[in-house]
Every structure is written in structure tokens, then in C-alpha cells.
């Protein structure tokens, strides 16, 4: 090869240059910071040190805490992903942003406990696994009824309306369900029937460098169940005829109607599936504290997860969940104290916002088509 051919080709495409800058930048920053701290130019009381160096020093010196934080972030992420999954299903299938998903979680969990209490308390069936399973079926039945009712009463008359109208209809739905739920179940918090459902409750300590970490069996179970759920739903919606129809409906109600896709049937399927996801979510979150209407606000956490992963992507829900979960735990734990703590409330949104600036449709979202 001659010199001429070498110079004739542009050395690097702009994209490659950008990529290199992305990698080189942080590396350079780390090197500079290390040099500065080593030389004593910035000391432990400087702001730059506190923000840019100290957290990493802590991570390094207390690896057990780092691992524990990552684990907690992972678990939180999985649980966020579960809620987000409920949103994704409905959005994917109808373009509706279902604001009522949060209350559906509460509703599902409360029906489960309600059935169980009736079975055990009034009907005298021995407490335990059998009763829990019957209650589970009852709760699923309620979610199916809910799906049918929602389709009949809310969605069917609102076919082909703009997104924001549908969004508000689901807000109305969430009001209704909140009122109805509190009337039916009372406002008292309830204890989740964790052990009757056969979920593990203990915890184990695992030795890691620098100490030990504590892992709740429940969290492990939650992670496993969530993964199974997400993978199977992903396959169902990606690979089947129904899956394609769902995406069509989300694109345009009108066109979907015109090719003979039954919106009614699709919506019932999807809302029921979202109901199942809500039930699972309710069980998992409920088992971590208690089931009360306060749980509804957790659903807001699914929003940044959702935009990060992309509204329409099932894998996006899980990846987004993990990024948000781990990101916010790390942020709160290592940087939160610098700002007086409690930054978890908005950190997730800021993380999502930053990602969005680079990918406006989220990591896995469908491209926003701009054509004229």
C-alpha cells in the first residue's frame, strides 16, 4: 500500500471520531482526577473531590456495600420493570397510556387478599396453599371482568381518539377504581399472604470480599418470576399473529379496523394480560411492605423506566428498569448525601431525560417517523 492510498481515504468517519471521544473522555477524566488527588491538588474537603472522587473511593474500599447496593438496585429495577411491563403491554396494543395501571396493581393485590380472607375467615377453609391458589384464581377472574368492563365501557366508544383523550379516560378509570376499591376493601393496609402463596420469606448472607451481603429469598423469587413473565410475554407478542395485530392497532385504530382486526377482542386480551402482570406486581411489592393504596404512587416510578426503555418495547421495560433501579440506588447511596439525601425522587427522571436527549424514542422504542 502506498502513502497515496492511505491519505486518500479519510482517516476516520465522524461517527468513529465521536465514538472514540465518548470512550476517551471518561478515561481521560479518571486519569486527570487520579493525578490531581495523588498530587494533593484536590483534597477531601473540595467539592470536586466529594463529587468525583470520594464516591469511587468508598466503592473501592467497601466492596460489600457496593455489591449490596447493586443487588438492591437490581431488585428494585426488576420490580419497576414489572410495573412498566403492564404499561408497555397496553400501550403496545392500543397506543393507550394506561394511567390506571398503578391502581390496578393495588386492586389486584387487594382482591387476592380479600378472597383469601373470605375463604379462610368466613368459609373456614384451612389457611394455606390451597386457599391461596383458589384466591389467586378469584383475583384473576376479577381482572378478567375488569378487562371486559374496561373494553366495553371505556375503550370501545373511544376508538380512534387522540392519545391524550385516551390517557385522560384512564385517569378517570383510576379515579373510579380508587373510589370503588376503597369502598370495597376499606382503606386499611393489608398484609400480603406471602407464605400461603408459597413464596420464600427468609434471607441468606453471602460472603463477598470485604464483608457479607444479605439477600432476601423473596427478592430472588421476584427476579425469577419477573424474568419468566417478561420473556414469555415477549415471545408471545413478538412471534405470534396476535402480536403483529397488536402493533398494527397501536399504529392506527382506523386502519386496523379497516383490515378486520377486532379491536374488542385484542383489547380484552391485552388488558387481561396487564391485569395478570398487575397481580404479580402487587404480590411482589405487597410482600415487601404491605398492600395499601399508597402503593399506587410506586407506579409513577414506572414512567421513567418506560421512557428509557421505549413505550413499546418489552425488553426495553426490563433494561430500562435495571438502569433506573441500579442508577438511582447508586446515585442516592453515593451522591445523595452530598445534596441532603432524597434525590431518589427525581434522579430516575433525570437519568431518563438524559437518555432521551440522545435517543428521543427511548433505548428500544420504535423510531419516531418523521416524513412529509
Amino acid at each position: 500500500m502506498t502513502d497515496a492510498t492511505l491519505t486518500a481515504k479519510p482517516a476516520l468517519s465522524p461517527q468513529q471520531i465521536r465514538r472514540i471521544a465518548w470512550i476517551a473522555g471518561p478515561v481521560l477524566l479518571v486519569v486527570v482526577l487520579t493525578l490531581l488527588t495523588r498530587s494533593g491538588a484536590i483534597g477531601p474537603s473540595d467539592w470536586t473531590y466529594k463529587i468525583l472522587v470520594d464516591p469511587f473511593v468508598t466503592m473501592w474500599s467497601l466492596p460489600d456495600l457496593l455489591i449490596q447496593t447493586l443487588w438492591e438496585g437490581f431488585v428494585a429495577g426488576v420490580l419497576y420493570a414489572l410495573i412498566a411491563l403492564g404499561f408497555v403491554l397496553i400501550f403496545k396494543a392500543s397506543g393507550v397510556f394506561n394511567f390506571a395501571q398503578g391502581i390496578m396493581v393495588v386492586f389486584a393485590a387487594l382482591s387476592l387478599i380479600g378472597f383469601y380472607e373470605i375463604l379462610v375467615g368466613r368459609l373456614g377453609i384451612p389457611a394455606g396453599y390451597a386457599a391461596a391458589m383458589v384466591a389467586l384464581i378469584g383475583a384473576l377472574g376479577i381482572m378478567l371482568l375488569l378487562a371486559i368492563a374496561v373494553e366495553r365501557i371505556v375503550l370501545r366508544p373511544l376508538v380512534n381518539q387522540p392519545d391524550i383523550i385516551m390517557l385522560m379516560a384512564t385517569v378517570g378509570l383510576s379515579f373510579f377504581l380508587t373510589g370503588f376499591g376503597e369502598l370495597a376493601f376499606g382503606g386499611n393496609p393489608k398484609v400480603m399472604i406471602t407464605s400461603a402463596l408459597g413464596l420464600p420469606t427468609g434471607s441468606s448472607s453471602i460472603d463477598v470480599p470485604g464483608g457479607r451481603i444479605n439477600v432476601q429469598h423473596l427478592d430472588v423469587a421476584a427476579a425469577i418470576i419477573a424474568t419468566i413473565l417478561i420473556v414469555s410475554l415477549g415471545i408471545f407478542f413478538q412471534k405470534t399473529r396476535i402480536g403483529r395485530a397488536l402493533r398494527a392497532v397501536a399504529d392506527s385504530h382506523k386502519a386496523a379496523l379497516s383490515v378486520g382486526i377486532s379491536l374488542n377482542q385484542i383489547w380484552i386480551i391485552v388488558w387481561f394480560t396487564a391485569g395478570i402482570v398487575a397481580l404479580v406486581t402487587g404480590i411482589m411489592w405487597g410482600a415487601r411492605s404491605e398492600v395499601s393504596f399508597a402503593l399506587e404512587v410506586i407506579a409513577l416510578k414506572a414512567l421513567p423506566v418506560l421512557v428509557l426503555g421505549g413505550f413499546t418495547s418489552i425488553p426495553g421495560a426490563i433494561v430500562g428498569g435495571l438502569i433506573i433501579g441500579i442508577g438511582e440506588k447508586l446515585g442516592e447511596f453515593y451522591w445523595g448525601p452530598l445534596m441532603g439525601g432524597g434525590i431518589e425522587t427525581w434522579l430516575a427522571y433525570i437519568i431518563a431525560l438524559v437518555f432521551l436527549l440522545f435517543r428521543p424514542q427511548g433505548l428500544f422504542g420504535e423510531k419516531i417517523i418523521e416524513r412529509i
Partner: protein
Amino acid sequence: MSAPTHVTPVAETAQDLILAVNNIEVIYDHVILVLKGVSLVVPRGGIVAILGANGAGKTTTLKAISNLLHAERGEVTKGSILFEGEEVQALSPNDLVRRGCIQVMEGRHCFGHLTIEENLLTGAFTRRDGKAAIRDDLEKIYTYFPRLKERRNSMSGYTSGGEQQMCAIGRALMSRPKMILLDEPSMGLAPQIVEQIFEIVRDINSREGVSFLVAEQNTNMALRYATFGYIMETGRIVMDGDAKALRENEDVKEFYLGVAEGDKKSFRNVKSYKRRKRWLA
């Protein structure tokens, strides 16, 4: 123009009508009256054209038939629509598709985020005759529209206007209907393709016996391929007749075909006597 009297085509008797629309009235938004008593029939295996100016109500008529009006806050307030002898107003659009009546909507309406091929496959949503048959039909569509085959893996939102139009027509064909309601099939298509589309219509019509109701602006084309035509104006049928008879009609000739006194007019020399020119006068 002739008086709005409606003459039922003589040859047809009730049983071989695939579609009969009797005196329907359509209202949008509870206040806007658009169709004021429209009646028309399509014989089994026929190709019927609806012609008329912009806003005459062609699209509305087709939507009323396919029951897509609800989605636009419109409703049929009077009259009845019979498909294969049965009232269909109470059916949902997908039931109608299952029964074999499908509409190709004006303005394409492809699923932008689905690829061309996926779009075509959604057309087969109501079919139950197995993957192989669907594959075959897909290939058939691709032979009709080779351009679609080239772009089969592109998201339809990114394809050109004409490609989307082909996709929409192909998608409807995928459902193997008995009757297709075509709304402005030629819009935005290159002349060659327009010709081709009407050839396809005739082909399917004669080989598979599919009936067509075509709303079309390209009067020339439409009357060449249709057997019967209706002309609409402001929500009423103002004229109907055999395609051939319509082609011969002087009014139609002047206003829709652009041949006055036997000559084709040039667009450069449009008469504008009735038109004031106030452009910065």
C-alpha cells in the same frame, strides 16, 4: 344534470345483489348532514364506480358501508345497508371483513411502524386457511406490485406515497374478500401503475368473482373498467347508468372527461369565464 331520480339497473334482481344501500342519511358530529338519501346497488361480480366532485360524499358512503363511520363520530341516521341480503349496520367492521367486505381507505393508512410485508400480513388477520395459503397470496401481491417486493423490509412509514398506496391495496387483497370498497385507488400513482391497478381489479373480478365499489376521481379510467356508474354531488346521487352510457353522456363528457366537442382540452386554455380574477386586482 338529470333529476335525482334513481333507476334500479334492470338486469339485477334482489338475490344477485351483493350490496344494496337504501336511502341512507349520514350525520357527522350530530350536526353536519352529509349524505342526504343515497341509494345504490352493486351486483354480485360487478364493478361499480362512484364519481363526483370533492366533498360530494363518496368517502362517506364507503365508510358508511364498511361501518368505519363510528370511528369518526359519524352515524347513519336513516336508511339501511344490506350486504348479501343482510342488514349490516349493527356489525363491527371486523365482522364485516370476516364476511368478506373490506375497504381500502383514502389516503393510504398503512401501519407506519410495520414493514411492508408485515402490513400485508395484517391484511390476512381474519383468515383461517393456514400459513401456506397466506404465503401464496403474498407472493401473488408481490407479482402484482414488484416495487413492494423490493421494499418489503422497510417500515412503511418511510416509503413513498405511491408505495404506500400499493401497500394498502395489497393489504386488502390479502384478506380474500368477496367485495372490495376502493377509495381513490389511483391517487398518487404513476400512470402506468394506475393502469395496472385497474387491470388487477378487472383480473380479480373476472377470475375470482370479487365485486368492487370504486370511488374515483379519475373518471376516464373508472368508466373504462366499471360496468355501472353513479355520479354524486353534495350528498346525493344525481345520475347513474351503465358505464358505457355515462361515457357517452354529454355532461359527463364535458365535466368529467374533459372532452368537449370531441376534442381533448388543454389545461393551458381552461375557460374561466365564471371565475373572477381578483388576484391582487
